[in-house]
């Protein structure tokens, strides 16, 4: 692996290898040494959460970072091409972590620079490190990725996180339930891909009956900024609110996941329940990002 741009290019073995590496880093069995290395965190589109997670991962391994947050302060505003910006950074840093609102921007970066590139989100396309930390979280709590029953709830149409996760898990014989309000269903191309791989999935409206079957429930935020008309957002925003009452009949191994930030789709009184896993999930993100950086820079 030279870059991490898309989950499409990460096979089953590589997924399991990265999970194993993240686990060893978390348990202190492997301590990758990033000292003397400089990571360029190029956040053309702001995302404090993802930026902090990467910066933490870099600094936990003794590395250093230069940060560009938002395109406002840079030459990007002056009309410099993305390729030129990247070529310049290529002269300074040892690897690039890049987030951009334009789809395919990270792929372009890999063709312009000769240092490793990690895609930290390109528009509605891919966010592979999020998918990998989700897989690590599932593996940690379930002890396997194989044969799990997983519900995905919320905005499944525009949420790239659930797309990448569904695609990645489809290699591990899952059973999926999808629940989304209004027009926010899982896109047809994802469902076509799942059918082509003989993955069992069902689109449900009422989530109550499926709760006792679930190993994992993955809830996503319904993003206000994706709606042109505010009333449309108001209509669907409260379609699925997860409270402790909704989750009374869960299995012992059940976990509730969310990529964060949440708005109101999981009420705060769920946080104290043993299955509430979203903050640990964020913590797992740092170990997984350490694993990814170590792998790409061949530190391990």
């Amino acid at each position, binding site marked *: 692996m030279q870059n991490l741009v898309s989950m*499409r290019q990460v096979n089953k073995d590589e997924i399991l290898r990265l999970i194993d590496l993240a686990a060893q880093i978390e348990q202190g069995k492997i301590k990758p040494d990033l000292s003397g290395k400089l990571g360029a965190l190029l956040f053309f589109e702001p995302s404090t959460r993802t930026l902090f997670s990467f910066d933490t991962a870099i600094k936990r391994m003794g590395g250093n970072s230069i940060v560009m947050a938002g395109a406002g302060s840079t030459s990007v505003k002056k009309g410099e091409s993305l390729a030129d910006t990247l070529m310049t950074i290529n002269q300074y840093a040892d690897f690039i972590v890049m987030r951009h609102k334009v789809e395919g921007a990270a792929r372009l970066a890999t063709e312009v620079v000769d240092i490793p590139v990690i895609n930290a989100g390109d528009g509605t396309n891919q966010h592979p490190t999020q998918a990998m930390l989700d897989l690590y979280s599932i593996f940690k709590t379930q002890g396997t990725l194989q044969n799990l029953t997983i519900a995905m709830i919320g905005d499944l149409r525009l949420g790239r996180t659930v797309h990448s996760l569904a695609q990645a898990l489809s290699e591990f014989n899952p059973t999926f339930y999808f629940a989304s309000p209004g027009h926010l269903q899982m896109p047809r191309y994802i469902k076509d891909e799942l059918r082509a791989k003989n993955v069992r999935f069902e689109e449900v409206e009422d989530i109550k009956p499926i709760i006792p079957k679930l190993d994992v429930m993955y809830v996503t935020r319904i993003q206000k900024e994706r709606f042109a008309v505010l009333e449309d957002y108001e209509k669907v925003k409260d379609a699925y609110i997860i409270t402790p009452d909704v989750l009374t009949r869960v299995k012992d191994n059940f976990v509730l996941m969310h990529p964060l930030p949440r708005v109101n789709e999981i009420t705060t009184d769920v946080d104290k329940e043993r299955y509430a896993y979203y903050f640990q999930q964020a913590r797992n993100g740092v170990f997984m990002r350490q694993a990814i950086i170590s792998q790409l820079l061949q530190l391990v």
Partner: protein
Amino acid sequence: MTPVKEKLKVDPIKSGTVIDHITAGKALVIADVLNLNPPENLMMIGVNLHSRKMGAKDILKIENRRLTEDEMNSIALISPTATIIAIKDFVVVEKRHPAIPDTISDKLICPNPNCVTNVEQIPTRFEVVDRDPVSVRCHYCEKKYAIQDVQFKF
């Protein structure tokens, strides 16, 4: 309809290229993609001709023009059924069924307005993911499109 009648509709050419068995309605698209300009290229187009094999077909005849491998690949994308016939002195010298390529470099425009190829000045690239019917995936934004929803660069 008899073959004689069809001949009356589209005259034979002395030398050049005949593109036969074009999916009905696609001849003009092919003419566009081949960048055929009427003053330079004497061209005859038959649209919606009767075909025993296909029901309806288009045919395109171009005087004094041989097609490149690249052009033939483009034609295969627009009409996988097309036959390309090279003519010299009214005689068929070569007959080809062009193959759909695996990748398409800088020939198509990505329909996704938020794709990096529509924001930065870079060539496009698509991978062919299905062949019947043809669909392609953008190498950059990874969106998949049916070929008829994708515009060619002229």
